């Protein structure tokens, strides 16, 4: 049944998982023990070490969905559909982490859980839309599922530049245009980014592997 699984999904699987676990553990240790407590916001500021890497992982995931969707429309190869759907699903998890951790940080920084500022609003819109991707994908049966999902993967990507550039395009944004940190804070943030991106990669590969197993099962069923 595993004959249809591409080699790159199974190769060095343990290595990637081990690296992800070590890096995440190291980044959590750095967040707790190494990064200094910010003077004004106190310990709440440390949410940034989860929030920012999760936001980057979300954009990487949805970007991957877009690229794989285009590749599917061009080649009609099932693996691109599997990559697009898997990236989108893992991306939704990271997007949810961003949406939960953001208000926790905002309560301390801006004295409100939620404010209708450009990046928050555009990110929420993006979250709803990619939620719609999964609902539509689950609602379509048969061969059209992959094509409809790929079309959505392309169309919904238009939101990403809006989220990315929202702090520059609209006045009144509370999000900083760029994060400037030095010393231990900077090192911890960079380590956290690397750790959560490797973790994303490990989970993403598992998810694609699951799609590959499903595809192999379908192939067997079809052959009967």
């Amino acid at each position, binding site marked *: 049944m595993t004959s249809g699984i591409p080699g790159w999904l199974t190769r060095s699987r343990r290595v990637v998982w081990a690296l992800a676990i070590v890096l995440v553990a190291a980044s959590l240790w750095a967040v707790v023990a190494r990064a200094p407590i910010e003077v004004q916001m106190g310990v709440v500021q440390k949410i940034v070490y989860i929030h920012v890497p999760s936001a980057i992982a979300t954009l990487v995931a949805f970007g991957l969905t877009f690229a794989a969707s285009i590749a599917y429309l061009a080649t009609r190869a099932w693996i691109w559909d599997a990559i697009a759907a898997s990236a989108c699903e893992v991306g939704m998890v990271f997007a949810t982490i961003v949406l939960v951790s953001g208000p926790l940080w905002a309560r301390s920084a801006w004295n409100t859980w939620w404010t209708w500022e450009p990046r928050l609003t555009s990110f929420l*819109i*993006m979250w709803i*839309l990619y939620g*719609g991707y999964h609902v*539509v994908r689950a*609602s379509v049966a048969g061969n059209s599922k992959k094509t409809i999902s790929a079309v959505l993967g392309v*169309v919904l990507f*238009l939101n990403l530049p809006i989220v990315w550039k929202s702090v520059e395009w609209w006045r009144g944004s509370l999000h900083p245009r760029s994060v400037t940190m030095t010393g231990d804070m900077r090192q911890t943030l960079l380590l956290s980014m690397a750790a959560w991106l490797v973790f994303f990669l490990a989970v993403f590969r598992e998810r694609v592997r699951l799609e590959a197993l499903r595809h192999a099962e379908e192939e067997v069923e079809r052959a009967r």
Partner: protein
Amino acid sequence: MTALRVLAKDLKLHARDARFLATLALFSLSLVLILSVAFGPLFRDPAREASATLWAALFFAGVLGLTRALDLESESGGGEALRLTGADPFSVYAGKATANFLLMAALWVLLLPCAAVFFDVGTLEVLPEVAVVAALALIGYAAWGTLFAALARGLKARELLLSILLFPTLIPLWIGAVKLTRSLWAEGSIDAVRDWVKIMVVVDVLGIALAAWLYETIQEAEE
């Protein structure tokens, strides 16, 4: 030519379904009424509240119009027949989008005076500019709505699916329409919010461009 024929076909289907059109008109009027009551009876910024009411009612009622057009087509078997003719997919899309635009424009003509009277806003002098703003918003609505409606065709709970895809996508269009209409009603010009015209044009063009690229693929997926 194909686009015109598809447009005529869709308009004919709508015209035969007078009961639905009457229900749609009453539904959208009810929305205007409910929102007027929610904001009133003393309005803080009548121009803002009136334009928000007008565009919220139009956007919500529009979803019903988009899905009804699909239902009518599948009931009559027109979609299948159209595909069999081998007609150019973008022409088919253009005809359908224009029919949806005209349906929405008719709703706008109905709701505009109601919103203006209920909130006591607007003058005839700014009516041409208000109509241009409406055209910009409704072109985008029809362009994106027709594209998403084709994606949702044949799915269960397609009104809900269409709403969760269409409304978040069209938020820039909705904000633009509300801000520009409000500005025209309150100040008589759009000078303070002129940038929204550009944003609305970009949303309109993107919707049409994506349809030109992807509508054929969506049609193929249905086969």
